[in-house]
Protein backbone atom coordinates (compact mmCIF):
# COMPACT_ATOMS: atom_id res chain seq x y z
CA UNK A 1 0.00 0.00 0.00
CA UNK A 2 2.79 2.33 1.02
CA UNK A 3 4.76 1.51 -2.09
CA UNK A 4 1.70 2.12 -4.20
CA UNK A 5 1.18 5.52 -2.62
CA UNK A 6 4.80 6.47 -3.10
CA UNK A 7 4.68 5.57 -6.75
CA UNK A 8 1.46 7.58 -7.16
CA UNK A 9 3.24 10.62 -5.75
CA UNK A 10 6.26 10.08 -7.98
CA UNK A 11 4.00 9.74 -11.00
CA UNK A 12 2.22 12.93 -10.07
CA UNK A 13 5.41 14.95 -9.93
CA UNK A 14 6.74 13.35 -13.09
CA UNK A 15 3.47 14.19 -14.84
CA UNK A 16 3.65 17.83 -13.72
CA UNK A 17 7.24 18.13 -14.88
CA UNK A 18 6.48 16.46 -18.18
CA UNK A 19 3.43 18.63 -18.76
CA UNK A 20 5.37 21.84 -18.31
CA UNK A 21 8.14 20.59 -20.59
CA UNK A 22 5.95 19.34 -23.40
CA UNK A 23 3.74 22.37 -23.36
CA UNK A 24 6.70 24.61 -23.74
CA UNK A 25 7.06 23.26 -27.25
CA UNK A 26 3.37 23.42 -28.01
CA UNK A 27 2.93 26.96 -26.79
CA UNK A 28 3.04 29.22 -29.82
CA UNK A 29 5.43 32.08 -29.27
CA UNK A 30 3.42 34.73 -30.97
CA UNK A 31 2.36 36.87 -28.04
CA UNK A 32 3.96 40.26 -27.73
CA UNK A 33 1.85 42.14 -25.26
CA UNK A 34 3.61 41.03 -22.05
CA UNK A 35 7.11 42.16 -22.86
CA UNK A 36 10.08 42.48 -20.57
CA UNK A 37 9.51 44.02 -17.17
CA UNK A 38 11.84 46.93 -16.73
CA UNK A 39 10.26 50.25 -15.85
CA UNK A 40 8.35 51.14 -12.70
CA UNK A 41 5.02 51.06 -14.51
CA UNK A 42 5.75 47.64 -15.93
CA UNK A 43 6.74 46.39 -12.48
CA UNK A 44 3.51 47.73 -11.03
CA UNK A 45 1.46 46.16 -13.80
CA UNK A 46 3.28 42.88 -13.32
CA UNK A 47 2.57 42.87 -9.58
CA UNK A 48 -1.09 43.76 -10.08
CA UNK A 49 -1.35 41.06 -12.69
CA UNK A 50 0.29 38.52 -10.38
CA UNK A 51 -2.10 39.31 -7.53
CA UNK A 52 -5.02 38.40 -9.76
CA UNK A 53 -6.07 34.93 -10.61
CA UNK A 54 -4.96 33.70 -14.00
CA UNK A 55 -6.29 31.21 -16.50
CA UNK A 56 -3.02 29.56 -17.35
CA UNK A 57 -0.15 28.26 -15.32
CA UNK A 58 2.72 30.49 -16.27
CA UNK A 59 6.18 29.55 -15.00
CA UNK A 60 8.52 31.99 -16.76
CA UNK A 61 9.07 33.89 -20.00
CA UNK A 62 12.10 34.61 -22.10
CA UNK A 63 12.91 36.43 -25.29
CA UNK A 64 14.44 34.57 -28.16
CA UNK A 65 14.76 35.73 -31.80
CA UNK A 66 13.00 38.95 -30.85
CA UNK A 67 9.95 37.04 -29.71
CA UNK A 68 8.57 36.66 -26.20
CA UNK A 69 8.19 33.01 -25.25
CA UNK A 70 6.21 31.73 -22.28
CA UNK A 71 6.84 28.49 -20.44
CA UNK A 72 3.92 26.93 -18.56
CA UNK A 73 0.77 25.01 -19.31
CA UNK A 74 -2.79 26.02 -20.10
CA UNK A 75 -5.71 25.30 -17.79
CA UNK A 76 -9.28 24.53 -18.80
CA UNK A 77 -11.71 27.43 -19.11
CA UNK A 78 -15.24 26.60 -18.01
CA UNK A 79 -17.79 29.42 -18.31
CA UNK A 80 -21.51 29.65 -17.85
CA UNK A 81 -22.50 31.76 -20.85
CA UNK A 82 -25.87 32.86 -22.19
CA UNK A 83 -26.00 29.53 -24.05
CA UNK A 84 -25.04 27.36 -21.10
CA UNK A 85 -21.78 25.72 -20.17
CA UNK A 86 -18.84 26.31 -22.54
CA UNK A 87 -15.38 24.80 -22.11
CA UNK A 88 -12.07 25.25 -23.92
CA UNK A 89 -8.40 25.44 -23.06
CA UNK A 90 -6.94 28.75 -21.99
CA UNK A 91 -4.19 28.34 -24.58
CA UNK A 92 -6.73 29.50 -27.16
CA UNK A 93 -6.31 33.05 -25.81
CA UNK A 94 -2.60 32.87 -26.71
CA UNK A 95 -1.62 34.74 -23.51
CA UNK A 96 -3.68 37.73 -24.56
CA UNK A 97 -5.15 39.62 -21.61
CA UNK A 98 -6.43 42.77 -23.29
CA UNK A 99 -9.39 41.56 -25.32
CA UNK A 100 -7.54 41.32 -28.63
CA UNK A 101 -7.93 37.60 -29.16
CA UNK A 102 -11.50 36.42 -29.69
CA UNK A 103 -12.32 32.76 -29.15
CA UNK A 104 -15.40 31.40 -30.88
CA UNK A 105 -17.13 28.45 -29.24
CA UNK A 106 -20.61 27.19 -29.98
CA UNK A 107 -21.51 30.37 -31.85
CA UNK A 108 -20.42 32.59 -28.95
CA UNK A 109 -17.42 34.86 -28.85
CA UNK A 110 -15.24 35.08 -25.76
CA UNK A 111 -12.31 37.26 -24.87
CA UNK A 112 -10.15 37.82 -21.80
CA UNK A 113 -9.59 41.30 -20.34
CA UNK A 114 -7.50 41.65 -17.18
CA UNK A 115 -7.93 38.02 -16.17
CA UNK A 116 -11.70 38.12 -16.64
CA UNK A 117 -13.58 36.26 -19.36
CA UNK A 118 -16.07 38.38 -21.32
CA UNK A 119 -18.76 37.22 -23.69
CA UNK A 120 -19.17 39.48 -26.70
CA UNK A 121 -22.66 40.63 -27.54
CA UNK A 122 -24.41 39.41 -30.70
CA UNK A 123 -22.91 40.78 -33.87
CA UNK A 124 -19.84 42.29 -32.28
CA UNK A 125 -16.64 41.29 -34.03
CA UNK A 126 -14.21 42.79 -31.54
CA UNK A 127 -14.28 44.49 -28.17
CA UNK A 128 -14.96 48.21 -28.02
CA UNK A 129 -13.72 50.15 -25.00
CA UNK A 130 -14.99 53.34 -23.47
CA UNK A 131 -12.80 56.09 -22.01
CA UNK A 132 -12.25 54.21 -18.72
CA UNK A 133 -11.17 51.10 -20.59
CA UNK A 134 -14.39 49.29 -19.80
CA UNK A 135 -15.72 46.99 -22.47
CA UNK A 136 -18.94 48.41 -23.92
CA UNK A 137 -20.15 45.55 -26.10
CA UNK A 138 -19.22 42.59 -23.89
CA UNK A 139 -20.27 41.34 -20.49
CA UNK A 140 -18.67 39.16 -17.86
CA UNK A 141 -19.71 35.53 -17.59
CA UNK A 142 -19.80 33.25 -14.58
CA UNK A 143 -16.30 31.85 -14.71
CA UNK A 144 -16.05 28.35 -13.23
CA UNK A 145 -12.67 27.68 -14.85
CA UNK A 146 -9.92 25.64 -13.34
CA UNK A 147 -7.89 28.79 -12.83
CA UNK A 148 -4.47 28.89 -11.26
CA UNK A 149 -6.08 29.36 -7.82
CA UNK A 150 -8.45 26.45 -8.35
CA UNK A 151 -5.48 24.41 -9.49
CA UNK A 152 -3.68 25.40 -6.27
CA UNK A 153 -6.70 24.45 -4.19
CA UNK A 154 -6.90 21.08 -5.92
CA UNK A 155 -3.18 20.51 -5.46
CA UNK A 156 -3.28 21.39 -1.76
CA UNK A 157 -6.44 19.33 -1.28
CA UNK A 158 -4.73 16.35 -2.88
CA UNK A 159 -1.57 16.81 -0.79
CA UNK A 160 -3.60 17.15 2.41
CA UNK A 161 -5.69 14.13 1.59
CA UNK A 162 -2.66 11.97 0.79
CA UNK A 163 -0.70 13.15 3.83
CA UNK A 164 -3.39 12.93 6.45
CA UNK A 165 -5.14 9.79 5.22
CA UNK A 166 -1.77 8.04 5.29
CA UNK A 167 -1.31 9.30 8.85
CA UNK A 168 -4.77 7.96 9.70
CA UNK A 169 -3.84 4.59 8.22
CA UNK A 170 -0.67 4.41 10.29
CA UNK A 171 -2.68 4.42 13.52
CA UNK A 172 -4.35 1.18 12.52
CA UNK A 173 -1.03 -0.61 12.77
CA UNK A 174 0.85 1.23 15.50
CA UNK A 175 0.38 3.70 18.30
CA UNK A 176 3.10 6.14 17.28
CA UNK A 177 3.41 7.15 13.63
CA UNK A 178 6.71 7.00 11.81
CA UNK A 179 8.20 8.97 8.94
CA UNK A 180 6.29 12.00 7.70
CA UNK A 181 3.42 11.15 10.03
CA UNK A 182 5.69 12.03 12.93
CA UNK A 183 5.85 15.58 11.55
CA UNK A 184 2.11 15.82 10.96
CA UNK A 185 0.98 14.44 14.31
CA UNK A 186 2.28 17.31 16.49
CA UNK A 187 0.66 19.80 14.10
CA UNK A 188 -2.69 18.06 14.45
CA UNK A 189 -2.22 17.96 18.22
CA UNK A 190 -1.27 21.64 18.19
CA UNK A 191 -4.49 22.66 16.45
CA UNK A 192 -6.54 20.43 18.72
CA UNK A 193 -4.91 21.38 22.02
CA UNK A 194 -3.93 25.02 21.42
CA UNK A 195 -6.71 26.23 19.15
CA UNK A 196 -9.83 24.08 19.36
CA UNK A 197 -9.82 22.95 22.98
CA UNK A 198 -9.12 26.22 24.85
CA UNK A 199 -11.40 28.34 22.66
CA UNK A 200 -14.40 26.07 22.23
CA UNK A 201 -14.28 24.21 25.51
CA UNK A 202 -13.84 20.61 26.57
CA UNK A 203 -17.49 19.69 25.95
CA UNK A 204 -18.00 20.76 22.35
CA UNK A 205 -14.57 20.99 20.73
CA UNK A 206 -14.67 17.57 19.11
CA UNK A 207 -17.49 18.52 16.76
CA UNK A 208 -15.55 21.42 15.26
CA UNK A 209 -11.97 20.13 15.29
CA UNK A 210 -12.35 18.60 11.83
CA UNK A 211 -13.31 21.91 10.26
CA UNK A 212 -10.62 23.83 12.14
CA UNK A 213 -7.93 21.33 11.16
CA UNK A 214 -8.98 21.46 7.52
CA UNK A 215 -9.01 25.25 7.44
CA UNK A 216 -5.73 25.59 9.31
CA UNK A 217 -3.75 23.30 7.03
CA UNK A 218 -5.56 24.58 3.92
CA UNK A 219 -4.60 28.20 4.64
CA UNK A 220 -1.13 27.42 5.89
CA UNK A 221 -0.09 25.25 2.93
CA UNK A 222 -1.61 27.69 0.44
CA UNK A 223 0.18 30.60 2.13
CA UNK A 224 3.46 28.70 1.90
CA UNK A 225 2.71 27.73 -1.70
CA UNK A 226 2.31 31.45 -2.39
CA UNK A 227 5.90 31.99 -1.33
CA UNK A 228 7.28 29.49 -3.84
CA UNK A 229 8.34 30.70 -7.27
CA UNK A 230 5.32 28.89 -8.73
CA UNK A 231 3.51 32.17 -8.15
CA UNK A 232 0.30 31.00 -6.51
CA UNK A 233 -1.76 33.68 -4.80
CA UNK A 234 -4.74 31.68 -3.60
CA UNK A 235 -5.20 33.04 -0.08
CA UNK A 236 -4.79 36.53 -1.58
CA UNK A 237 -8.01 36.04 -3.58
CA UNK A 238 -11.00 37.74 -2.02
CA UNK A 239 -13.29 34.97 -3.28
CA UNK A 240 -11.25 32.33 -1.43
CA UNK A 241 -10.98 34.19 1.87
CA UNK A 242 -14.65 35.20 1.63
CA UNK A 243 -15.59 31.56 1.13
CA UNK A 244 -13.56 30.53 4.19
CA UNK A 245 -15.05 33.33 6.30
CA UNK A 246 -18.58 32.42 5.22
CA UNK A 247 -17.97 28.79 6.17
CA UNK A 248 -17.04 29.96 9.65
CA UNK A 249 -20.06 32.27 9.74
CA UNK A 250 -22.39 29.44 8.78
CA UNK A 251 -20.87 27.12 11.38
CA UNK A 252 -21.13 29.51 14.28
CA UNK A 253 -24.57 30.67 13.21
CA UNK A 254 -25.84 27.12 13.01
CA UNK A 255 -24.27 26.02 16.27
CA UNK A 256 -25.28 29.06 18.34
CA UNK A 257 -27.26 27.92 21.39
CA UNK A 258 -30.20 29.54 23.13
CA UNK A 259 -27.96 31.42 25.53
CA UNK A 260 -25.93 32.91 22.70
CA UNK A 261 -28.92 34.13 20.73
CA UNK A 262 -30.42 35.43 23.94
CA UNK A 263 -27.34 37.54 24.49
CA UNK A 264 -27.30 38.72 20.88
CA UNK A 265 -30.96 39.65 20.54
CA UNK A 266 -32.04 40.61 24.06
CA UNK A 267 -28.98 41.27 26.21
CA UNK A 268 -29.76 40.45 29.81
CA UNK A 269 -28.73 42.75 32.61
CA UNK A 270 -29.03 46.07 30.76
CA UNK A 271 -31.90 48.60 30.75
CA UNK A 272 -34.70 47.78 28.32
CA UNK A 273 -34.18 50.82 26.09
CA UNK A 274 -30.54 49.83 25.49
CA UNK A 275 -31.49 46.29 24.48
CA UNK A 276 -32.62 47.01 20.87
CA UNK A 277 -29.51 49.12 20.24
CA UNK A 278 -27.28 46.38 21.56
CA UNK A 279 -29.18 43.83 19.48
CA UNK A 280 -28.40 45.80 16.32
CA UNK A 281 -24.74 46.07 17.25
CA UNK A 282 -24.54 42.38 18.18
CA UNK A 283 -26.28 41.32 14.97
CA UNK A 284 -23.92 43.47 12.91
CA UNK A 285 -21.04 41.91 14.80
CA UNK A 286 -22.36 38.43 14.17
CA UNK A 287 -23.15 38.73 10.47
CA UNK A 288 -20.76 41.41 9.24
CA UNK A 289 -17.89 42.36 11.51
CA UNK A 290 -16.72 38.88 12.48
CA UNK A 291 -16.68 37.41 8.94
CA UNK A 292 -15.24 40.63 7.50
CA UNK A 293 -12.45 40.68 10.06
CA UNK A 294 -11.62 37.12 8.99
CA UNK A 295 -11.75 37.62 5.25
CA UNK A 296 -10.08 41.02 5.08
CA UNK A 297 -7.26 40.13 7.48
CA UNK A 298 -6.18 37.05 5.55
CA UNK A 299 -6.62 38.68 2.15
CA UNK A 300 -4.82 41.90 3.12
CA UNK A 301 -1.92 40.22 4.87
CA UNK A 302 -1.19 37.80 2.06
CA UNK A 303 -1.66 40.40 -0.70
CA UNK A 304 0.54 42.86 1.15
CA UNK A 305 3.19 40.19 1.61
CA UNK A 306 3.19 39.40 -2.09
CA UNK A 307 3.34 43.08 -3.04
CA UNK A 308 6.24 43.76 -0.66
CA UNK A 309 8.28 40.73 -1.73
CA UNK A 310 7.75 41.47 -5.43
CA UNK A 311 8.50 45.18 -4.98
CA UNK A 312 11.73 44.35 -3.19
CA UNK A 313 12.70 41.93 -5.95
CA UNK A 314 11.90 44.73 -8.43
CA UNK A 315 14.54 46.95 -6.78
CA UNK A 316 16.88 45.03 -9.06
CA UNK A 317 15.42 46.91 -12.04
CA UNK A 318 14.11 50.12 -10.56
CA UNK A 319 17.29 51.17 -8.72
CA UNK A 320 19.65 49.83 -11.38
CA UNK A 321 20.69 53.29 -12.54
CA UNK A 322 21.20 54.73 -9.04
CA UNK A 323 23.00 51.79 -7.38
CA UNK A 324 24.61 50.04 -10.38
CA UNK A 325 23.54 46.52 -11.28
CA UNK A 326 25.54 44.86 -8.50
CA UNK A 327 24.36 47.27 -5.78
CA UNK A 328 20.70 47.06 -6.77
CA UNK A 329 20.82 43.26 -7.04
CA UNK A 330 22.58 42.92 -3.67
CA UNK A 331 20.17 45.26 -1.90
CA UNK A 332 17.20 43.52 -3.49
CA UNK A 333 18.47 40.06 -2.52
CA UNK A 334 19.19 41.01 1.09
CA UNK A 335 15.87 42.81 1.62
CA UNK A 336 13.72 40.25 -0.15
CA UNK A 337 15.48 37.42 1.68
CA UNK A 338 14.59 38.84 5.07
CA UNK A 339 11.07 39.80 4.06
CA UNK A 340 10.57 36.28 2.70
CA UNK A 341 11.66 34.89 6.07
CA UNK A 342 9.09 37.12 7.74
CA UNK A 343 6.51 35.99 5.19
CA UNK A 344 7.15 32.38 6.15
CA UNK A 345 6.25 33.37 9.68
CA UNK A 346 3.24 35.37 8.46
CA UNK A 347 2.07 32.37 6.45
CA UNK A 348 1.81 30.37 9.66
CA UNK A 349 0.57 33.28 11.73
CA UNK A 350 -2.34 34.10 9.41
CA UNK A 351 -3.39 30.45 9.27
CA UNK A 352 -3.19 30.36 13.07
CA UNK A 353 -5.13 33.62 13.52
CA UNK A 354 -7.86 32.60 11.09
CA UNK A 355 -8.31 29.24 12.80
CA UNK A 356 -8.00 30.73 16.27
CA UNK A 357 -10.63 33.40 15.59
CA UNK A 358 -12.93 30.85 13.97
CA UNK A 359 -12.57 28.68 17.07
CA UNK A 360 -13.16 31.71 19.29
CA UNK A 361 -16.36 32.70 17.43
CA UNK A 362 -17.62 29.11 17.54
CA UNK A 363 -16.68 28.96 21.22
CA UNK A 364 -18.71 32.10 21.94
CA UNK A 365 -21.70 30.59 20.16
CA UNK A 366 -21.65 27.26 21.99
CA UNK A 367 -20.54 28.53 25.40
CA UNK A 368 -22.85 27.57 28.24
CA UNK A 369 -23.40 30.42 30.64
CA UNK A 370 -24.06 29.91 34.28
CA UNK A 371 -27.61 30.98 35.01
CA UNK A 372 -27.58 34.00 37.22
Amino acid at each position, binding site marked *: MKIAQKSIKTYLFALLALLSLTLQAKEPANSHDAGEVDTKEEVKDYIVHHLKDSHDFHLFSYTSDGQRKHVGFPLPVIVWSSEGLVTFMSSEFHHDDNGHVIVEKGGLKFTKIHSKIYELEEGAAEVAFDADHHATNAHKVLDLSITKSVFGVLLVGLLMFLG*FSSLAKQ*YKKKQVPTGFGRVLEPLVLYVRDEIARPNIGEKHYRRF*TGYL*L*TVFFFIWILNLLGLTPLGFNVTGQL*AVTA*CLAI*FTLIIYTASGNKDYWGHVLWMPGVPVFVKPVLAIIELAGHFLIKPFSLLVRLFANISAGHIVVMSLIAIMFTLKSELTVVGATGLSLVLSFFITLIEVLVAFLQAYIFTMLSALFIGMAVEEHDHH
Partner: protein
Amino acid sequence: METLLNDFSPGLFIVQTILLLGLIFLLVKFAWKPILTSLNEREEGIQNALDAAENAKKEMENLNADNERLLKEARAERETMLKEAREMKDKIISDATEEANAKAGKLIEQAQAAIETEKKAAMAELKTHVASLSIDIAEKVVKGELSDKKKQLALVDSMIGDATLN
Protein backbone atom coordinates in the same frame (compact mmCIF):
# COMPACT_ATOMS: atom_id res chain seq x y z
CA MET B 1 -12.97 49.37 -3.27
CA GLU B 2 -14.27 49.22 -6.83
CA THR B 3 -11.17 47.38 -7.99
CA LEU B 4 -11.50 45.02 -5.08
CA LEU B 5 -15.11 44.27 -5.96
CA ASN B 6 -14.15 44.00 -9.61
CA ASP B 7 -11.45 41.50 -8.67
CA PHE B 8 -13.90 39.42 -6.69
CA SER B 9 -14.68 36.45 -8.85
CA PRO B 10 -18.07 34.84 -8.15
CA GLY B 11 -17.05 31.83 -10.21
CA LEU B 12 -13.97 31.24 -8.08
CA PHE B 13 -16.13 31.67 -5.00
CA ILE B 14 -18.52 28.95 -6.17
CA VAL B 15 -15.73 26.58 -7.19
CA GLN B 16 -13.89 27.20 -3.92
CA THR B 17 -17.07 26.55 -1.91
CA ILE B 18 -17.63 23.23 -3.65
CA LEU B 19 -13.99 22.20 -3.33
CA LEU B 20 -13.76 23.22 0.33
CA LEU B 21 -16.96 21.35 1.17
CA GLY B 22 -15.59 18.29 -0.57
CA LEU B 23 -12.23 18.64 1.14
CA ILE B 24 -13.79 19.04 4.58
CA PHE B 25 -16.02 16.04 3.98
CA LEU B 26 -13.20 13.81 2.69
CA LEU B 27 -10.71 14.82 5.35
CA VAL B 28 -13.20 14.46 8.20
CA LYS B 29 -14.19 11.04 6.98
CA PHE B 30 -10.81 9.62 6.01
CA ALA B 31 -8.35 11.58 8.10
CA TRP B 32 -9.51 13.66 11.06
CA LYS B 33 -11.97 11.21 12.54
CA PRO B 34 -9.64 8.19 12.58
CA ILE B 35 -6.68 10.36 13.62
CA LEU B 36 -8.48 12.07 16.50
CA THR B 37 -10.08 8.82 17.65
CA SER B 38 -6.73 7.03 17.73
CA LEU B 39 -5.07 9.98 19.44
CA ASN B 40 -7.77 10.00 22.11
CA GLU B 41 -7.49 6.26 22.57
CA ARG B 42 -3.75 6.55 22.87
CA GLU B 43 -4.01 9.36 25.41
CA GLU B 44 -6.55 7.42 27.43
CA GLY B 45 -4.27 4.40 27.30
CA ILE B 46 -1.35 6.46 28.55
CA GLN B 47 -3.49 7.97 31.30
CA ASN B 48 -4.72 4.54 32.36
CA ALA B 49 -1.19 3.19 32.40
CA LEU B 50 -0.05 6.11 34.53
CA ASP B 51 -2.96 5.63 36.91
CA ALA B 52 -2.22 1.93 37.16
CA ALA B 53 1.43 2.65 37.89
CA GLU B 54 0.42 5.14 40.56
CA ASN B 55 -1.95 2.61 42.13
CA ALA B 56 0.70 -0.07 42.07
CA LYS B 57 3.10 2.30 43.76
CA LYS B 58 0.55 3.06 46.47
CA GLU B 59 -0.17 -0.63 46.98
CA MET B 60 3.55 -1.29 47.20
CA GLU B 61 3.87 1.40 49.82
CA ASN B 62 1.01 -0.10 51.79
CA LEU B 63 2.59 -3.52 51.57
CA ASN B 64 5.89 -2.15 52.75
CA ALA B 65 4.24 -0.44 55.69
CA ASP B 66 2.47 -3.69 56.56
CA ASN B 67 5.71 -5.58 56.37
CA GLU B 68 7.40 -3.06 58.58
CA ARG B 69 4.62 -3.30 61.15
CA LEU B 70 4.66 -7.10 61.11
CA LEU B 71 8.39 -7.12 61.51
CA LYS B 72 8.19 -4.78 64.48
CA GLU B 73 5.51 -6.89 66.09
CA ALA B 74 7.48 -10.05 65.56
CA ARG B 75 10.55 -8.43 67.03
CA ALA B 76 8.65 -7.27 70.10
CA GLU B 77 7.13 -10.71 70.54
CA ARG B 78 10.54 -12.32 70.36
CA GLU B 79 11.81 -9.86 72.95
CA THR B 80 9.05 -10.72 75.40
CA MET B 81 9.46 -14.44 74.77
CA LEU B 82 13.15 -14.26 75.42
CA LYS B 83 12.56 -12.25 78.58
CA GLU B 84 10.00 -14.76 79.84
CA ALA B 85 12.31 -17.64 79.09
CA ARG B 86 15.14 -15.99 80.92
CA GLU B 87 12.94 -15.35 83.94
CA MET B 88 11.70 -18.89 83.91
CA LYS B 89 15.24 -20.22 83.72
CA ASP B 90 16.32 -18.11 86.68
CA LYS B 91 13.33 -19.23 88.68
CA ILE B 92 13.87 -22.87 87.87
CA ILE B 93 17.52 -22.64 88.85
CA SER B 94 16.81 -20.85 92.11
CA ASP B 95 13.97 -23.26 92.96
CA ALA B 96 16.16 -26.20 92.27
CA THR B 97 18.97 -24.81 94.41
CA GLU B 98 16.62 -24.14 97.29
CA GLU B 99 15.13 -27.57 97.11
CA ALA B 100 18.53 -29.19 96.93
CA ASN B 101 19.71 -27.17 99.89
CA ALA B 102 16.67 -28.12 101.88
CA LYS B 103 17.07 -31.77 100.96
CA ALA B 104 20.73 -31.73 101.80
CA GLY B 105 20.02 -30.09 105.17
CA LYS B 106 17.41 -32.67 105.93
CA LEU B 107 19.75 -35.50 104.98
CA ILE B 108 22.49 -34.09 107.14
CA GLU B 109 20.10 -33.75 110.05
CA GLN B 110 18.88 -37.28 109.61
CA ALA B 111 22.44 -38.50 109.40
CA GLN B 112 23.39 -36.59 112.50
CA ALA B 113 20.36 -37.97 114.34
CA ALA B 114 21.21 -41.46 113.19
CA ILE B 115 24.80 -41.00 114.28
CA GLU B 116 23.61 -39.70 117.64
CA THR B 117 21.32 -42.69 118.24
CA GLU B 118 23.98 -45.08 117.02
CA LYS B 119 26.42 -43.35 119.37
CA LYS B 120 23.95 -43.57 122.25
CA ALA B 121 23.25 -47.20 121.51
CA ALA B 122 26.93 -47.92 121.30
CA MET B 123 27.57 -46.13 124.56
CA ALA B 124 24.76 -48.00 126.30
CA GLU B 125 26.02 -51.29 124.92
CA LEU B 126 29.51 -50.33 125.98
CA LYS B 127 28.23 -49.45 129.43
CA THR B 128 26.38 -52.75 129.87
CA HIS B 129 29.38 -54.60 128.47
CA VAL B 130 31.69 -52.75 130.82
CA ALA B 131 29.32 -53.35 133.72
CA SER B 132 29.00 -57.03 133.03
CA LEU B 133 32.73 -57.25 132.47
CA SER B 134 33.37 -55.47 135.81
CA ILE B 135 30.87 -57.72 137.48
CA ASP B 136 32.62 -60.73 135.95
CA ILE B 137 35.96 -59.40 137.07
CA ALA B 138 34.60 -58.53 140.48
CA GLU B 139 33.06 -61.97 140.72
CA LYS B 140 36.31 -63.59 139.72
CA VAL B 141 38.21 -61.31 142.13
CA VAL B 142 35.75 -61.86 144.91
CA LYS B 143 35.83 -65.60 144.20
CA GLY B 144 39.64 -65.50 144.38
CA GLU B 145 39.69 -63.34 147.53
CA LEU B 146 37.06 -65.31 149.33
CA SER B 147 38.52 -68.71 148.74
CA ASP B 148 40.89 -68.19 151.67
CA LYS B 149 39.71 -67.32 155.21
CA LYS B 150 42.51 -65.05 155.94
CA LYS B 151 41.98 -63.14 152.92
CA GLN B 152 38.25 -62.80 153.75
CA LEU B 153 39.16 -61.43 157.07
CA ALA B 154 41.76 -59.05 155.71
CA LEU B 155 39.14 -57.77 153.34
CA VAL B 156 36.64 -57.29 156.05
CA ASP B 157 39.25 -55.50 158.00
CA SER B 158 40.21 -53.19 155.15
CA MET B 159 36.53 -52.48 154.42
CA ILE B 160 35.92 -51.74 158.07
CA GLY B 161 38.99 -49.53 157.92
CA ASP B 162 37.65 -47.65 154.86
CA ALA B 163 34.26 -47.31 156.51
CA THR B 164 35.70 -45.72 159.58
CA LEU B 165 37.68 -43.36 157.44
CA ASN B 166 34.54 -42.14 155.79
